[in-house]
């Protein structure tokens, strides 16, 4: 059973992700953050529901939409914000930016600018975990669109034949930029996948389950079984989590491919609101506790922004370091 502490910690991580993303949206609009930024708001239940099972020595691979995974894994929010600003104090010293935040110390093997590229990396980390023993597992996050990339499909097969401790988590937020993940009618032309990815996984030899990705407890439950399977050496699993992104594909997206009504419809199923209702109803938390946590999250993000804005840029000469472990330029 989930303890109160654990539940409130999950809630905190969710509101911290939301606060972070809402703020990044603002900052981007104000021109303070450069580059390509993909926000996770709306999908918090997936990252938090799954990652709540992980322990030191486990790994995750992430995507271009990686802030939520980072925060759920415990990457320092100050460093993340500084990274988005391109500052020397950033998680990656300003060299990576939003699409390339990594923190191997906490098991976060990197956001990724290449759709699907995390699949093979997860296979490798899981091979290492299996070789080393000790029950480590690896979670591979990837979008619905990513499921059609050869890298991901090959990885499903490899994980199955090698019986690796991987949980493939599909973040099906309904879209790959402007393409629907799956059509309900047979005639939908802008569709990216002919069949459900959960069905596909089974055909690759990987047990799968479709999950309400707006319900953190549902995700938690499904992930529990999958992670346990991995730790027990029984092989990979796949969770197909149905969710939604509130913002555009990237910051600046005109969103010609979907309606405001559709967004509103999904916002009604907001994962944080839903979790709040459950926490209140079950008596785990009071409104006061929850609003305290939300305030705390807002404050943590405020601090992060202050930290980022107060931090120096890297020295130009740092452009030439870190290519190799030994001197290069």
């Amino acid at each position, binding site marked *: 059973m989930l303890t109160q502490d654990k539940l409130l910690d999950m809630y905190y991580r969710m509101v911290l992700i939301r606060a972070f993303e809402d703020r990044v949206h603002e900052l981007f609009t104000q021109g303070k953050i450069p580059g390509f930024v993909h926000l996770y708001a709306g999908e918090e239940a997936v990252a938090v529901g799954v990652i709540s099972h992980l322990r030191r020595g486990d790994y995750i691979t992430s995507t271009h939409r990686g802030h939520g995974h980072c925060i759920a894994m415990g990457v320092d929010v100050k460093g993340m914000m500084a990274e988005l600003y391109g500052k020397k104090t950033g998680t990656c010293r300003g060299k990576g930016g939003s699409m390339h935040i990594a923190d191997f110390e906490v098991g976060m093997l990197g956001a990724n600018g290449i759709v699907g590229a995390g699949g093979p990396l997860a296979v490798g980390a899981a091979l290492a975990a299996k070789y080393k023993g000790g029950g480590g597992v690896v979670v591979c996050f990837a979008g619905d669109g990513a499921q059609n990339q050869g890298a991901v499909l090959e990885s499903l097969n490899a994980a199955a034949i090698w019986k690796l401790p991987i949980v493939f988590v599909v973040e099906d937020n309904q879209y790959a*930029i402007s393409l629907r993940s799956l059509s309900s009618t047979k005639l939908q032309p802008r569709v990216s996948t002919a069949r459900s990815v959960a069905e596909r996984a089974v055909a690759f030899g990987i047990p799968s389950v479709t999950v309400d990705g707006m319900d953190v407890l549902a995700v938690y439950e499904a992930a529990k079984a999958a992670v346990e399977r991995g730790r027990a050496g029984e092989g990979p699993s796949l969770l197909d989590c149905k969710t939604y992104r509130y913002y555009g594909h990237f910051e600046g997206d005109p969103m010609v491919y979907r309606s405001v009504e559709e967004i509103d419809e999904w916002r009604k199923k907001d994962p944080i609101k839903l979790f709040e209702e459950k926490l209140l109803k079950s008596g785990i938390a009071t409104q006061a506790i929850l609003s305290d946590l939300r305030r705390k999250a807002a404050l943590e993000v405020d601090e992060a922004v202050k930290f980022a804005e107060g931090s120096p840029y890297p020295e130009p000469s740092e*452009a030439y370091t870190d290519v190799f472990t030994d001197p290069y330029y």
Partner: protein
Amino acid sequence: MSGVREITFVEALNEALLQEMERDPTVIVMGEDVGVYGGIFGVTKGLLDRFGPDRVVDTPISETAFIGAGVGAAAAGLRPVVELMFVDFFGVCMDQIYNQAAKMRYMFGGKIKIPLTVRTTIGGGVSAAAQHSQVLYSIFAHVPGLKVIVPSTPYDAKGLLISAIRDDNPKMFFEHKLLYGVKGPVPKEPYTIPFGTADVKVEGSDVTVVAVAYMVHEAVKAANELKMNGISVEVIDPRTIVPFDKDAVFKSVKKTGRLVVVDEDYERCGFASWVAALVADECFAYLDAPIKRVTTPTVPIPFSPVLEKEILPNAEKIIKAVKEVVK
């Protein structure tokens, strides 16, 4: 030419696609989000409405499958224009480009043709970091069988894209991010520009500067500034790397005796090296100074604007290099 207006590079490309699709029903467009979205940079805007989903094909994120589909469709008689969203993604689909499209005609004894155009976005300068800022045209020029097109102006963009679509070979068409918004005069009617014909952007007598894509603009800026210092720079834009207008470059170097090659691609084993090597062989007797290259050092493109600015070539660095060879 009549009907010349000032339009952007994006609009010029869009017009080229539209006019060729109207002219030739075998021209189809494929790629991620080329339909409703109109392409992530807007190059295919309006085409879906005009030509329908059979000719403007939104694809899943399966670059190997859809670029390979472009090759197969070309083999079967169509004239596909396929969009690879960023050149940086070539790593997931290079086989279909370089081992299939590029080599089929040769391997099959010259009996077939693959009239395929792959359009893609290149270049830094927008803090897009290590996997969305590369240029990489040198790699496509290195392998045999691909024509490599690198327009620098809206006029060239339209003319070269029309030439590309009508050409019977596999082509890589490179569009620099920083050029999309650039405006210039473009005739309304369709026109072509022959591949392998360099454009002398600025005439000069002291130093030859060869540059492509966005770097042409930085080179021209440098030339203008250097003129005020009394240094006369000739700026040459080859416009296509394959085929390459060696003659234009050699002619200029034989006149100036000095060469600076400007190239946003990585320094090691890149386009600039090749131009330098050609000249160091074939124009050696005319050279009065070391050949300089102004390139991006061979490091991943960093995210932070401060770092990115440090490594990308620009007018300032070109000026410095020119001054070194004339001193």
